[in-house]
């Protein structure tokens, strides 16, 4: 099946991105396809390039980059990002920034859209 993922909360503050990450890994291991992860609301903070968590804690930036390496598309909402300061200079990858139309696209092309 094809899964689209919406993440609405920021890293560390809420568990949303951790749950999404674990869900995505399990889905891929079970042979499903992830059409993309759309970051909206405070979710855009997950792709801030300067996260420096303590060494004894998980590094959410690295976990997400690892997903990207496995072919998962990450999309940061441009409007929500600008409002919060996640822009070209501060985002992990400039190419990830895109519009809300991409979220609708995920809804259309995925069998399921899951919100975290």
């Amino acid at each position: 099946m094809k899964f689209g993922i919406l993440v609405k909360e920021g890293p560390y503050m809420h568990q949303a991105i951790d749950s999404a990450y674990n869900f995505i890994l399990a889905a891929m291991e079970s042979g499903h396809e992830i059409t993309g992860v759309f970051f909206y609301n405070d979710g855009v903070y997950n792709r801030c390039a300067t996260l420096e968590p303590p060494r004894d804690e998980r590094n959410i930036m690295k976990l997400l980059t690892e997903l990207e390496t496995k072919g998962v598309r990450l999309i940061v909402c441009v409007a929500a990002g600008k409002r919060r300061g996640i822009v070209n200079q501060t985002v992990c990858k400039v190419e990830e920034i895109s519009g809300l139309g991409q979220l609708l696209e995920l809804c259309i092309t995925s069998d399921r859209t899951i919100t975290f």
Partner: protein
Amino acid sequence: MLHIVKKSPYESSAFSDAINYMEQNDIMLLTEDGIYAAKKGGKFEGALKSLMQKNAVYCLVADVKARGIQESEIIENVKVIDYKGFVEKVTEHNPMTWS
């Protein structure tokens, strides 16, 4: 539908809102702080048991363990599943998240 509850029932209306929206054949997944609804002896045991007369309820093992809830402390008939089980439930039911 699969109703995903991720806030504590003591602190948020998410759990009771989700119950209000459950139809026949719908299922509920308790995850993150939502798992406290599945704890024996808590204030929501009655509400959960009455829900389970018609609907299946699952909870996520990673969240249960993190919060120190032992399997013996989980209300009977709540099924403990892992992330793969979560994925499977999403393939079977369209999800709605209550947070």
